[in-house]
């Protein structure tokens, strides 16, 4: 690492991985319940497990993004972080809010709105926390020696993500309006501004790992995030097909969300071609694995599988079925989990001065985890398509259908074990690296 204050990223990465482990635990609880083993029903009913699973994902990814920003922004701005102390306070606050949220969920302290279950009182704390974060990296950039496209895209993405949290904090009497503005947060995050964050992180990693000229990489970054918003903003319409909104959303949402894969295809081509152009000579191959893997898997999960059920003719039947879970799992994995893992894989040798990327542990972690998530996606796909045909097309009873597809959740659980093994190896590698060390200053170099 170039600057001492970059080490604060370690805290965010460590707590991100810890929360990810918890997310997996709740995932298994739900998979077992779907198989008919709901022994925990009286203590952790499905809705509590589900909310915990989703919100742990959101909080740990945000923690990963923040860690990435604290690592990238000083390097791009070519100066120390504005305030390391503020960053630590902000880290502690984020974790406290996260822990209270997850404990609160087990006692029904929540808002029953998918993805935004964090209760309103804690929403304010989240906002304050994120403002502190934005202020810290904003001041670092403002006082920095240079403005790079990578840092600006990352900063704009993070700031827009903070602003877009606000529509989710308005109370509506009407379920239709509630839903309408809930998607401003959820959709415009994951299919909008989070892609800026992802693009910014990816661009930083490609610059460092491939040695391709910054101007070239950043030019294509603009093109890709341009496509993201070109398709993604009006693509919000694919959530407005059947919730009581006007019918023009059927074709607007259909057309623009059909274009959304282009942005992800761009990401994939971007990562692969830059890696090829650079000859993949960087010794930290594993960070490049995750970076290129992120481009490819986000295209498959978010782009291709999203397209598979986004057209209104298809979505009429698949809306609100396990088909959505199929797309969701690989999309979040490919686009956001992998970019955070790529960042951690790149940053850890820099932070600690230990070069532990060249052994079997991180490499097997990459392959096993990816095979696991592909298996899970397959299990969800089979269960989802079967559900659509039996329940929606033929009209069988919901519970009869669920019992018929229980076996696919056994497959899901097996694949989930592989994913967990892969993530376990990844975390083991993370622990082996140890803590950030001042000896690593300037020694790493890209």
């Amino acid at each position: 690492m170039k600057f001492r204050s970059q080490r604060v990223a370690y805290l965010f990465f460590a707590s991100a991985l810890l929360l990810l482990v918890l997310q997996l635990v709740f995932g298994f609880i739900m998979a077992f319940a779907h198989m008919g083993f709901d022994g925990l029903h009286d203590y952790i009913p499905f809705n509590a497990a589900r909310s915990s699973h989703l919100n742990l994902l959101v909080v740990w990814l945000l923690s990963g993004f923040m860690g990435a920003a604290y690592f990238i922004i000083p390097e791009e701005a070519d100066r120390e972080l504005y305030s390391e102390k503020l960053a630590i306070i902000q880290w502690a606050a984020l974790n406290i809010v996260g822990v209270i949220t997850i404990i609160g969920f087990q006692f029904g302290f929540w808002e029953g709105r998918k993805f935004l279950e964090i209760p309103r009182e804690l929403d304010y704390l989240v906002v304050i926390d994120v403002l502190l974060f934005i202020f810290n990296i904003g001041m670092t950039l403002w006082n920095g020696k240079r403005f790079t496209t990578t840092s600006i895209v990352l900063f704009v993405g993070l700031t827009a993500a903070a602003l877009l949290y606000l529509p989710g904090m308005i109370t509506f009497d009407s379920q239709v309006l509630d839903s309408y503005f809930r998607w401003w947060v959820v959709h415009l995050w994951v299919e909008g501004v989070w892609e800026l964050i992802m693009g910014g992180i990816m661009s930083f990693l490609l610059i460092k790992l491939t040695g391709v000229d910054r101007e070239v990489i950043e030019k294509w970054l603009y093109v890709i995030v341009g496509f993201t918003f070109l398709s993604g903003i009006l693509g919000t319409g694919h959530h407005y097909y059947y919730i009581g909104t006007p019918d023009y959303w059927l074709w607007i949402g259909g057309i623009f969300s059909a274009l959304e894969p282009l942005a992800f295809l761009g990401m994939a081509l971007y990562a692969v071609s830059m890696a090829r152009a650079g000859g993949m000579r960087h010794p930290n191959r594993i960070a490049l694995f995750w970076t290129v893997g992120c481009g490819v898997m986000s295209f498959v999960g978010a782009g291709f599988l999203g397209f598979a059920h986004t057209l209104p003719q298809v979505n009429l039947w698949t809306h609100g079925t396990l088909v959505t879970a199929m797309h969701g799992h690989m999309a979040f994995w490919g686009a956001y989990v992998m970019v955070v893992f790529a960042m951690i894989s790149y940053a850890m040798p820099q932070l600690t001065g230990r070069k532990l990327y060249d052994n079997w542990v991180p490499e097997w972690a990459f392959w096993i985890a990816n095979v696991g998530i592909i298996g899970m996606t397959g299990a969800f796909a089979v269960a989802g398509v079967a559900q659509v045909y039996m329940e929606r097309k033929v009209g069988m009873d919901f519970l009869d259908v669920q019992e018929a597809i229980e076996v696919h959740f056994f497959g899901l659980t097996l694949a989930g074990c592989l994913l967990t093994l892969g993530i376990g190896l990844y975390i083991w590698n993370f622990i082996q690296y140890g803590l950030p060390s001042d000896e690593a200053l300037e020694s790493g170099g890209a």
Partner: protein
Amino acid sequence: MLSKSQARWFFVGGTMFFAAIFIFLTVDSLREIPARQNQDQMTADVVRGKFIWERENCMGCHTILGEGAYYAPELTQVVKRRGAEWIKVFIKDPEAMFPGRRRMVQYDFSDDEISDLIAFLTWIGEIDTNGFPPEPDLAPAVVVASASMASSTAKPAYFTTICIACHSVGGTGGSVGPALDGVGNRLTANELDRWLADPPAVKPGTAMPKLNLPDATRSELVQWLVTLK
């Protein structure tokens, strides 16, 4: 070849342009939504029901308007599908209605809360959703035939809304409890009456719940059941 500043303009210009269209369409949607959601029918009960729905995180298992989790049934049309009476009985003791199957949390709602929830779900079912959820289009033709047959016989309303969830007559209905064809040959009116009043008292461990039927409903059911020969 595309320059970096052109690429930047593509990003900034494209984003502003499509954001502007999105805002415009949002304004238009907000104008049309009141009619599509029957704003005039959004009574205080409906709104209270919505907040109960949120308070209990019903979306954590069910979907509504297709949104939520995939562990429990889609509820957009539940009032039309099951009827308000059925929901009232079901929600007081969900496990009793589907013994041994996937469980729902026992909420101990008050009667007022239940009627607010039903008001909310009734209102949801009337929203113009562009055709969601769709009617099953591959449904076997026999379902249509038996549905028309069911309407031609004079079943008590309670039977067609509640009992049918578990029992079948003439091939229509649930399979949790035994089919009731010919039940009039097996049981007398007295036996049926005693059974319906309190099934677990007659046969401890039975899956059939005590439904606390009003006397009039119970005798109407008994009189009809004995005719099933």
